[in-house]
């Protein structure tokens, strides 16, 4: 029925304008200050920076998953020729534009490892690895130079995809050449495949190898599910923030929020589904080298975090987001987005920190400051990118349909 002829409202504010440099300055200052603060606390901790790296990895993971979620969202919209999402696609394009920054931040983990720091990944300590039969058999894969090479390859692939889709999308704004959309669609298929392979293996390397004895083939999907929850939550909040500041007020409508909310709901469920699928097979097989990962998380105080994830990352938002009213009313939707972002952070914390200490919950102020620091840089780069372009792909052939989009 949609004829797709609707135009952007002539008075619509589609430029970030002064808001761009303003956000950039605040975010950059916050980021740098908090990172310095974290570094100082790390040095003062006197444990050869080990605790610092765990905190840093949590913050790094949070924003890396966000950027990867954005990368996937932006590419798959081309692949499936989605039109409803055109009005929000530029925002995710800016989020995936932070991947070069994330690569720079990953060097903070890789370079000390190359210099011989072994605090974060147990397998990088040869004395430990050769003492442990399972790990010693994996050293052909789990060794520092190969690890560093793989991380560089992942980022090369991600940055290449992000760069391609961001620049082409902006180029189309300027030239109005609709064949660009067709080319992006053709590239999106191999891009999504490359994304799936690299993200899956990156999940094995960055998070699963924290516990080098343990393995779970579904783990990459689990990380992906969490990343998508975080992306939709963040995207909805960014849209609301921009509209509050008078941008895109007539472009993004309740219908778009409703659809983003549906995706948020779907991925909350997908996350729970994957988390359970991983748990059930390990629970049923009951093999020690597989159960160890859960044993660390269900004995002692970590059990509370595990239960919190079950009820607060899954059951509570799932039940509440079931209703369309929750998704169409902005205040409730915003609440669950903020809620799920916090839960995604706790999820990553639950994945990473038991490796540091599975007997207590080793909370440290650095966990917060590292996340805020990396978040500051992330927001600064995204705001900088958005400040130079229109907030919507103005010449996208699907824009008309996106503006007219309605749920039935």
């Amino acid at each position, binding site marked *: *029925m949609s004829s797709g002829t609707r135009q952007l409202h002539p008075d619509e504010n589609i430029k970030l304008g002064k808001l761009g440099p303003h956000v950039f300055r605040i975010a950059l200052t916050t980021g740098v200050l908090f990172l310095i603060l974290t570094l100082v606390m790390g040095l003062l901790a006197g444990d050869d920076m080990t605790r610092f790296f765990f905190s840093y990895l949590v913050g790094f993971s949070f924003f890396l998953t966000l950027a990867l979620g954005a990368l996937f969202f932006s590419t798959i919209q081309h692949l499936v020729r989605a039109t409803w999402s055109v009005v929000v696609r530029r925002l995710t394009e800016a989020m995936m534009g932070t991947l070069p920054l994330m690569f720079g931040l990953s060097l903070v983990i890789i370079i000390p490892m190359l210099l011989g720091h072994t605090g974060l990944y147990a397998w990088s300590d040869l004395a430990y690895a050769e003492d442990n039969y399972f790990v010693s058999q994996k050293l052909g894969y789990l060794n520092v130079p190969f690890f560093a090479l793989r991380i560089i390859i992942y980022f090369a692939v991600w940055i290449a995809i992000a760069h391609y889709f961001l620049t082409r999308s902006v180029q189309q704004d300027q030239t109005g050449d609709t064949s660009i959309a067709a080319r992006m669609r053709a590239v999106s298929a191999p891009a999504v495949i490359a994304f799936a392979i690299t993200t899956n293996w990156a999940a094995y390397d960055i998070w699963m190898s924290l516990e080098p004895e343990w393995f779970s083939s579904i783990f990459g999907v689990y990380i992906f599910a969490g990343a998508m929850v975080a992306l939709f939550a963040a995207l909805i909040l960014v849209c609301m923030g921009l509209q509050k500041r008078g941008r895109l007020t007539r472009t993004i409508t309740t219908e778009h929020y409703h659809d983003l909310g549906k995706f948020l709901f779907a991925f909350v469920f997908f996350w729970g589904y994957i988390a359970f699928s991983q*748990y*059930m097979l390990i629970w049923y097989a*009951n093999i020690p080298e597989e159960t160890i990962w859960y044993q660390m998380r269900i004995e002692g105080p970590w059990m509370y975090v595990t239960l919190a994830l079950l009820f607060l990352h899954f059951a509570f938002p799932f039940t509440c987001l079931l209703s369309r009213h929750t998704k169409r009313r902005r205040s409730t939707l915003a609440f669950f987005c903020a809620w799920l972002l916090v839960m995604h952070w706790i999820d990553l914390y639950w994945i990473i920190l038991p490796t540091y200490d599975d007997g207590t919950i080793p909370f440290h102020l650095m966990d917060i400051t590292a996340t805020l620091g990396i978040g500051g840089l992330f927001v600064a780069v995204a705001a900088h990118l958005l400040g130079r372009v229109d907030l919507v792909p103005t010449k996208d052939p699907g824009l008309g349909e996106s503006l007219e989009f309605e749920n*039935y």
Partner: protein
Amino acid sequence: MTTENQSDIPETGPGGEGPLHGVLAEYETPGELIEAAKAVRDAGYTKWDCHSPFPVHGLDPAMGIRPTVLPLLVFAAGIAGLGGSILLVWWMNAHNWPWIVAGMPAFSLPANIPILFESTILLAGITAFFGVWALNRLPKLWNPLFKSDRFLKATDNGFFISIEAADPQFERDKAETLLKDAGATAVEAIHLDPDPTRWQIPRPILAFIVITAILGLVPFAFIAKARVTHGDQPRIHVFPDMDFQVKADTQQRLVIDDSPVFRDGQVTRPPVEGTVPRGQLRQDDHFYRGLEGDEWATTFPAQLDIDTSTMDRGHEQYNVYCAPCHGEDGLGGGPIHERALEIQSPEWLMPTSIHDQNVTRQPHGQLYNTISHGIRTMPGYRAQIDEEDRWAIVLYLRALQRSQKALPDDVPPEERAQIR
């Protein structure tokens, strides 16, 4: 879109045509359809409907249709599926026939969540599907509107409103004017067939439905017949590997090298040497063997609650296992003893009185050991009575022995009057 029932009290039409069913109006766009629907709604009609090739957003409020109850039905069915399947797996696995598989608990959520999930979805899905049918009164094989050639466009690019003659305030002229004023490109009257028999389902179709339904009963008839007859053919084995399993049947003779399962003739494996099955360590000498160090225990083990319920349990178990020989009073004259005297059994020795000094002097642990392993002609009862119950019997024995030396002061004051 709901399709209302066809008219009950049809108005007789002009010659040649059947009674009037209603009027049908065509509109060009969904927008015009919505505006016209609002007009018809505001005019107060109740038996009317809109027809469009696809769902039109905003048509429900324009027609004045209340939000459907279907989501609530689906939700309720989902909850019922969830609750029902929880009850099902609990009742089957943990209550009616508890069966431990691979050391997992009889009732465990991780193993059953797929079942709970699937039944929730199944019931919700079935309710959604058939709920739509029921709420829309489907299947409806025929509608008088189908007679209109123009109405064929309703599945392609036509948007229609029909008002039925059965509507209480239906007046043909007024209705046609209303629809035309609302922007209709065409308005036509729809008449039923003059022959009332053709308002019903055509005979051949009805016959086909009835015959199919009857044929559908044939398999059930065979099943019913099989239940009351017998045949000389061996039964069909649909799943031979389930009918003939690799297992040992009860009392099957097992020969070395001929066991269906293991070559040594056994069907289960003995525990690995040097290992103890979970929950069978029995390290506590006091509780399991009645020993404190090398001596018979003189106290009750900590596992035993010394209270009335344990005493009652001991009383009950004593009457089941001990009283047949020792007698309910413990003096040794139980029913078996009486019977032995009756038949003058030459081998029978009178059971020991538990009030004998040799017995009363024995520590708790030694009594426990006697119950477990027997003494002289008394067999051991460790296979029949579990540890806790054996200790409960010892506790009861102590009470029984004490009762033989009771003084008037032992009886509660209010019951003392009954003593003669």
